[in-house]
């Protein structure tokens, strides 16, 4: 009876109840978006980093993988050392370099990844055949490159490296056959990337790239203690940067601290507005109904019932408003995500707003508790209004 009573009381004033509901929905949407933003990109980044099963990255000390042009020297020796570390099942070096493809008389700049085909974690093969160890005649293309070159499986490309402006000719060039089309996991949108074997990239890139790698991906054995593996690697290679996925996410988080802080501020504002809106509506409703409430108390309705009735009214605004807000919030999150993921250089696979059940639950519960609390002061006031004085003042 309390529920239908509270609902009917709200429906007495459809315009203001409707507006309040809409207001709660918008607050809920903003709150949800801020909850999604607060950790979305980190979760997205972490998921991406773990997508191929490599839990550790080794890169030049003080840098994040591919964050600068710094490379690791004596890469082969380091990789061998990592592979012989207890708990490590795989270590895959990756070297990034700038190469060019001849196309229609011009040189098209490319991002080339030199990889070890037996231990790579940066692409997923979508069509054709993967590279093989020691392969020096094949190349894998990302879709943006294939599109721009109009290349398909089996086509031959001429790749050049080390352009020498003095003689206006490349120092090295090589013909390769497209053996596969791949999706590069960490690439920005439309990034023109290709993959070759590591020695090929080292050779094409120039003498300064011999035996160098940009990063080494490390996979620990299933069930192995990743922390112990990392500790061992740090001891063995004190001058290298050894980072777990957690370390990388933490550093990433530092760079994006602004978004966390913004999400906290805007989320808090959304909650404050919800409290003000629901609280004001209920306070005015209680004010208008003080006579009724005093009568209820006079005929023996307990304080608890009165409080429950007012709080129920608050919940009748907050719950449907919250549900509407979730749908609204998911829509605005897509819009905001589309804006933020246009950051230059950001991997296309990353999202800022990641909608997971946990996040939705946090937002919903926070809103619910806020709505409940907003109803408490007017409910308390209603329940404690002096009966006789209120009835007197309500008399004509």
């Amino acid at each position, binding site marked *: 009876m309390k529920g239908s009573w509270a609902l009917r009381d709200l429906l007495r004033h459809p315009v203001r109840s409707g507006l309040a509901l809409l*207001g709660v929905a*918008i607050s809920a949407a903003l709150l949800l978006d801020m909850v999604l933003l607060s950790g979305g990109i980190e979760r997205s980044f972490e998921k991406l980093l773990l997508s191929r099963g490599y839990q550790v990255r080794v890169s*030049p000390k003080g840098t994040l993988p591919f964050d600068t*042009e*710094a490379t690791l020297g004596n890469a082969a020796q380091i990789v061998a050392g990592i592979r012989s570390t207890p708990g490590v099942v795989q270590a895959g070096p990756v070297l990034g370099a700038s190469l060019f493809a001849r196309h229609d008389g011009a040189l098209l700049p490319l991002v080339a990844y030199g990889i070890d085909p037996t231990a790579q974690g940066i692409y997923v093969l979508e069509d054709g055949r993967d590279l093989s160890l020691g392969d020096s005649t094949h190349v894998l293309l990302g879709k943006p490159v294939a599109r721009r070159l109009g290349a398909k499986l089996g086509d031959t490309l001429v790749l050049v490296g080390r*352009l020498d402006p003095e003689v206006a000719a490349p120092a090295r060039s090589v013909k390769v056959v497209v053996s596969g089309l791949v999706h590069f996991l960490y690439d920005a949108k439309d990034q023109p990337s290709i993959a070759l074997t590591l020695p090929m990239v080292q050779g094409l890139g120039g003498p300064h790239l011999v035996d160098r790698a940009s990063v080494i991906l490390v996979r620990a054995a299933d069930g192995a203690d990743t922390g112990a593996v990392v500790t061992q690697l740090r001891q063995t290679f004190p001058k*290298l940067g050894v980072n777990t996925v957690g370390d990388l996410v933490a550093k990433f988080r530092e760079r994006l601290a602004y978004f966390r802080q913004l999400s906290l501020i805007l989320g808090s504002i959304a909650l404050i507005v919800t409290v003000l809106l629901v609280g004001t509506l209920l306070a*005015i409703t209680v004010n208008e109904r003080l006579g009724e409430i005093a009568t209820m108390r006079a005929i023996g309705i307990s304080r608890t019932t009165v409080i429950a009735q007012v709080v129920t009214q608050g919940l009748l605004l907050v719950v449907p408003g919250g549900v509407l807000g979730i749908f609204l919030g998911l829509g605005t999150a897509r819009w905001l995500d589309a804006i933020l993921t246009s*950051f*230059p250089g950001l991997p296309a696979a990353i999202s800022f707003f990641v909608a997971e059940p946990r996040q939705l639950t946090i937002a919903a519960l926070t809103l619910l508790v806020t709505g409940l609390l907003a109803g408490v002061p007017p409910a308390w006031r209603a329940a404690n209004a002096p009966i006789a004085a209120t009835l007197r003042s309500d008399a004509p």
Partner: protein
Amino acid sequence: MNRFLLALLICAPLPLRAQLLEIAVERRFADDAKVHIGDTVWIAASADAPEHAARVVAVTEPAADPATIMRRDYRVRLHLPDLAAILGQPDRVDRFGVGLEPGVDPDSAAERLNRVAFGYQVFRSSEIASQSSTTFLVVSRFHRAIAIISILASAVFLLCLMVLKVEERRLDVAVLRFTGISRRTVFRSLLLEAMVVAVAGALLGTGIAAVASAIVNWYYQRTFSTALIFSLLQWRTILFAVVLSIVLGLGAGSLAAWRLVRTPPLTLWRRAG
């Protein structure tokens, strides 16, 4: 220069060696590492590369760059040949800056250079600036999107609160109408109230924004040790916000007031009773 990160190892001032390199460090690094002019630092191309001693000859304050502020990298300067030698890449640079004689058109100069270029490209400085500010533009678009959502939300909240506020007055309005006060007078009086609230709210909001802006700048300037302005309250922005607040407040107030005055006074009386 190549954007290689230099690993800087600091030791106590050493006796100067022959051919000590010269290095200028940025103030933030000097503060954090407690390095002064005259001190010797050891620099290397990477953590496992050979080290070179360098004397700090200057402490610089780089121009605040919002695109790189989050990275918190330390910036240093060396003589070009020294850096090239350390990096093991003699005769290599990332780019040249080209100064033109007065009167020379940058576009035609760039075009001529690009025709003979091999292995490099020539851009106008403004093109580089525009490319490097893409990050900034994305953040601006994001802020604008949040502002749109906030404005829409504010409009709804304002309307709701105005409706509540005005409806509270229905008994007063009923009595006024009973005593012969016209709809127009009642409407104007409610609108005046709404305007006072809107103006007062806008001014209060401006004050809060000024305080918040100061806090944001103070906090982030301390955090990133920079003179960069993170939040800038311009007169244009203030004017826009105030005008918008007043328009929204008046709009909401007039909608709420119109609802009330068009209701027959007897109905208002009964509802209030």
